[in-house]
């Protein structure tokens, strides 16, 4: 009998949990375990790690026994541009100031939607940047510089 993954969503969850459980179990080895009376820093992580491992095993079993809906196509465009926009902001905020960082972040994020429209996106970025600068810098007094 060949084993086949019939429920990819459970399988994906199981992989995620194996990683987290594994990290917990490996990480707690360098921590003092202590005893039930006097628990050390590693006591609870050890229990949690095994708990997560048990659930991961249960999910693995489910993923090959029960059927389930297939995974959705990975939305690469949205993932790259949305997650990338945070990195753009992180890189620019201390070097280029709030105005440029916000502009760039909005433009990169807007590219997540299908069909990038330069004109309307530039307008949107300008309007939102002005709004953010006024709101955060002047109304709320956040300590950032607006210009480089």
């Amino acid at each position: 009998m060949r084993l086949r993954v019939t429920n990819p969503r459970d399988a994906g969850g199981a992989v995620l949990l194996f990683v987290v459980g594994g990290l917990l179990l490996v990480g707690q080895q360098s921590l003092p375990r202590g005893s039930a009376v006097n628990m050390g820093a590693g006591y609870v992580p050890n229990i949690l790690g095994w708990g997560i491992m048990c659930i991961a095993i249960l999910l693995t079993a489910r993923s090959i026994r029960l059927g389930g809906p297939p995974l959705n196509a990975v939305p690469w465009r949205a993932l790259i541009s949305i997650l990338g926009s945070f990195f753009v902001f992180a890189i620019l905020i201390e070097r280029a100031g709030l105005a440029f960082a916000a502009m760039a972040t909005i433009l990169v994020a807007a590219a997540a939607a299908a069909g990038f429209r330069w004109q309307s996106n530039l307008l949107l970025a300008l309007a939102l940047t002005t709004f953010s600068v006024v709101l955060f810098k002047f109304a709320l007094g956040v300590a950032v510089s607006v210009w480089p």
Partner: protein
Amino acid sequence: MMEMFDHLALGFSVALSGNSLFYCFLGALIGTLIGVLPGIGPVTTIALLMPITFVLSPVSALIMLAGIYYGAQYGGSTTAILVNLPGEASSVVTTLDGYQMALQGRAGEALAIAAIGSFFAGCVATLLIAATGPLLSSIALEFGPAEYFALMCFGLVGSIVMASGSVIKAVAMIFLGLALGLVGTDVNSGDARFTFGMVELSDGIGFVPVAMGLFGVAEILRNLRTADDKRELVSARISGLWPGLSTLAKAFPAMVRGTTIGSILGLLPGGGATLSSFVAYVVEKKVAKDPSRFGHGAVEGVAGPESANNAGAQTSFVPMLVLGIPSNAVMALMAGAMMVHGIAPGPQVMTANPSLFWGVIASMWIGNLMLLIINLPLIGIWVALLKIPYRMMFPAIIVFCSIGAYSIDNSTFALVLTAMFGLLGYLLMEFDFEPAPLLLGFVLGPLMEENLRRAMLLSRGNPMTFVESPLSLFFMVGAAILLLIVLVPSIGRTRKTVFVED
């Protein structure tokens, strides 16, 4: 009894100050605005706006966040009635009869009934909180570590009951949340745990990046995957905002029933606005002489659930403020916001910070009054908002998230964390996990570990301590019963109809 009015008087003196009124109004306004926009729920809104409130005083911050919450609740019902699109999960049932009323040209009547019902529920819930709060807090002050640990177990199991979908996956989310809560320096020993050598993690993972990433960013990623939504507005002009006396007479008993249901369910762990509105609708259908009217514009079908979700939204503050145990994702955010302000939620808040506690309670009543004023005359503006395309909304959310996450302590690390949790949130959604139990686990994790360690130390390592104290036994038995309920399949099936986001 007199004491209760003294407390409320103190509360109103705080809530009626110019500053509080302003932030209450601002919160209710922003909440309504965002509640109307489909695609952003109250959890996302609060996560998004939380950094803004950090510059305010704790009282103003909590008043504003509370305003956002019930504003969003109410804004959600406006879209439910006019566009057949629930702005929030808690107004899903309002679409059933509210939209039908709108199609019959009774949109104004439906909106007014929803507003009046919410206001009525808000008044009753405020009084109820004022009456029960001190009682609960005096009980909670007797709690030892064992009782607290048992209560938190009960709360977490409650969030499993409320999560739709698989029980195993909800348990996994709680464990994952508890694990994330471990990161940072261990308070007892000073050992760094799971920081992977990063200095930025020595204080633990920030609450804001987790909430923004899991709810805000992940939601955008999901929305971008689904095709453009079509919104069809009821085009007829909204007229006749004042319902006739006969309609009011029909709606009033439903409001009373809805308020009762909501007030009780809001107090339970895992309860809150969403569950309350579903139960209220079912009850209305059961008690009606002619249940076939439901789904065809029955006014009770709007009045009951709308009163219930508002009452539930408000009373769900009680376990958070009084016991320090958030019962749903929104309350977890509120608890997180309080901790950022240096106030640990729990029974001591009421005695150590009476003006904060009673000020927030009183501001809820004022906020409900403001909602009545904001909503009915400004309905045209809210309808116009529905025409904003999502293409323009999500870049705005992203840039506010970025500035917000960065501004907490001017750290770019928070931005990287937000992106990472956005990715995690997206993966969890893809694999059919619900992020709400994770957030509860994350907030409660450090408290649970602390209380577990202390309880075991006090009992000299005997785990029987959790069943020997009557209160602790009560919570443990409660948790066990809840777990049994979810594991019985017939009840499990009806759980699917109850939504999670609150």
